[in-house]
């Protein structure tokens, strides 16, 4: 294994130097893709001393993570996309060992206790993964299933679920959305009825990222009959309990390497001590972490959009039509300039919101605006770029078509566009009053 890796690295070292611009690669396709993909996404260092939120440490963090991605993740993405799943336990252990799963989590539980700007740096760097599914799964592990637990969970609970998730030993998933409730979280139907010192859970969850491989679920369920915003609780649910059924792995348009499950609960019994924080506060806890979730998603997609623009430039530079490279047609390079401008605008909003957030401000409005823009820009960008790839853009062999499929989710998941608009209107005080 080491020898093969060594040989692979030797090839990379020796061959990447001697390739002239239009040489056809005679090596294994995965190797040539690895070389070409890396040279495409290598960018000039953008972290100078006067960066808005990043320091030398952020820069070092990104470099280390990038190396890990290049060696442990990207070479296998095509394979995992084809297989419809990725080895979450293996990858999360590697990331956990390197410290990337608990960047802003408490030190006592294996985290690094750093501020959210470091999480944003991680999210940005994960955008260099050659698909959307794996960063999404990592995001769930590090910043969606665990924030409430980190903040409000008991010490015992944190030791069992938080520590192990940060170390990468246990795979986490988030159980909030249901078949009948997505945007309208308050209308979920899953019930957790107290019987003695246990909760008996009945119901089901939908769109569960990593659901087929997860060891535990951060479950939002109705624990009483009160008003819908005050009757829900978050529960740490081990996925191997009797009554937990992984009904199916959902076949999706994109994000293929991330296994998404529909899960049913049939009289599942879990100790009452597995509740996170206070009973009835689950909805509130869940809402609290949305700002971070949304900024995380934005940070992730911004890097990917940069990469897609760059790959489109590379492709259109060498593809010729009517005696000219496609890129030389003004409509093309002007459009790419427009798109790049929008990406930079979104990036600025991301950094502004992050800077304010780490100072303790409420950035719900800005985070919602950023999420809204990110979803829409990603669709626009992937559509325009795919057009310039022509017939090749329509094939499964190129990164742009995968991006087109993967990024469509951004306007839907983690807060649909319409929900974002509603939040912004609330802050603008333009919603009709009852």
């Amino acid at each position, binding site marked *: 294994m*080491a*020898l093969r*890796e*060594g040989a692979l*690295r*030797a090839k*990379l*070292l020796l061959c*990447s*130097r*001697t390739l*002239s*611009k*239009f*040489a056809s690669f005679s090596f294994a396709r995965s190797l040539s893709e690895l*070389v070409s993909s*890396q*040279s495409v996404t*290598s*960018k*000039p*260092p953008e972290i100078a001393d006067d960066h808005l939120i990043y320091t*030398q*440490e952020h*820069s*070092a*963090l990104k*470099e*280390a993570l990038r*190396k*890990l991605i*290049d060696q442990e993740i990207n070479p296998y993405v095509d394979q995992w996309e084809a297989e419809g799943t990725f080895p979450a336990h293996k990858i999360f252990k590697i990331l956990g*060992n*390197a*410290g*990337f799963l608990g*960047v802003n989590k408490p030190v006592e539980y294996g985290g*690094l206790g*750093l501020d959210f700007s470091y999480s944003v740096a991680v999210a940005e760097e994960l955008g260099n993964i050659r698909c959307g599914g794996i960063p999404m799964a990592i995001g769930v592990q590090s910043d969606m299933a665990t924030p409430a637990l980190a903040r409000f969970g008991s010490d015992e609970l944190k030791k069992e679920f938080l520590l192990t998730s940060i170390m990468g030993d246990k795979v986490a998933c988030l159980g909030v959305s249901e078949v009948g409730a997505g945007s309208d979280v308050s209308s979920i139907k899953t019930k957790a009825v107290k019987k003695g010192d246990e909760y008996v859970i009945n119901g089901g969850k939908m769109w569960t990222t990593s659901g087929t491989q997860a060891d535990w679920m951060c479950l939002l369920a109705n624990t009483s009959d009160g008003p819908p915003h005050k009757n829900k609780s978050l529960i740490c649910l081990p996925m191997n309990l009797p009554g937990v059924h992984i009904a199916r792995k959902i076949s999706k348009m994109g994000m293929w390497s991330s296994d998404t499950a529909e899960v049913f609960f049939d009289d599942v019994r879990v100790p009452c001590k597995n509740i996170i924080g206070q009973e009835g506060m689950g909805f509130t806890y869940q809402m609290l972490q949305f700002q971070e979730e949304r900024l995380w998603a934005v940070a992730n997609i911004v890097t990917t959009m940069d990469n897609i623009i760059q790959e489109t430039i590379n492709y259109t530079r060498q593809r010729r039509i009517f005696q000219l490279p496609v890129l030389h047609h003004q409509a093309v390079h002007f459009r790419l300039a427009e798109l790049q401008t929008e990406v930079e605008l979104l990036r600025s909003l991301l950094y502004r919101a992050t800077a304010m957030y780490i100072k303790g401000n409420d950035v719900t409005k800005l985070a919602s605006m950023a999420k809204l823009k990110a979803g829409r820009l990603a669709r626009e960008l992937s559509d325009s770029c795919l057009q310039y790839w022509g017939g090749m853009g329509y094939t499964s062999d190129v990164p742009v078509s995968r991006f087109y499929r993967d990024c469509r989710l951004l306007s839907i998941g983690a807060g649909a566009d319409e929900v974002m608009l509603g939040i912004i209107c609330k802050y603008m005080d333009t919603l009709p009053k009852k």
Partner: protein
Amino acid sequence: MSGRVLVGVKRVIDYAVKIRVKPDNSGVVTDGVKHSMNPFCEIAVEEAVKLKEKKLIKEVVAVSCGPQQSQETIRTALAMGADRGIHVEVSGKDYETLGPLQVSKILAALAKKEDAQLIILGKQAIDDDCNQTGQMTAALLDWPQGTFASEVSMDGAQVKVVREIDGGLETIKINTPAVLTADLRLNTPRYATLPNIMKAKKKKIANVKPADLGVDLTSRLEVLRVDEPPQRQAGMKVETVEDLVEKLRDTGMV
């Protein structure tokens, strides 16, 4: 024995970057291009840190010669487990002409100053592919050398080195102090983990000037011109094997 190991780390253009030659053919474009630690230097750092973890040596000192940005490379070495760093400041014209001879003089001077037991370097840098610094450093210090190391083990005051040579593997035993250069299969460098990256912030990097070490940086070499490799030519199709052999003979290939 001091138990101190000096590891040389060089800041080079990242291996995945497509190199472009400057329009005036005086060199390659380095401005705004991604740089990182030379891969063979990473292997050298990893080996030194491994020796420290096995308690065979006491301290790992990372050294880099270059401009201000070389400090980033030293920080990466610190994040991998080196204890402290030495940045030998070389910039401007001096940096453009800095080569193995000058670097080996610097390393030799530092080795004496730091009372080093071992110097571990990468076998070569991926930008100039010189493969000279290790050998020159050993010669200047009159120390034994174990180059192209694919396996290193300490045996008291001696080092056993398995070397990768054309014919296969050669095992030698050399006395310390010695110079080792790391080859590809010596080890797989660890990822700088986030906790170590944060810890590296507190580790010290000393600033030194070549003049302080009594080293003259004048180069004996002058780069006349840098060109891209020739564009790949179109191939030729032949009808028969005889034609093929004839063509091969004509072009002097056979």
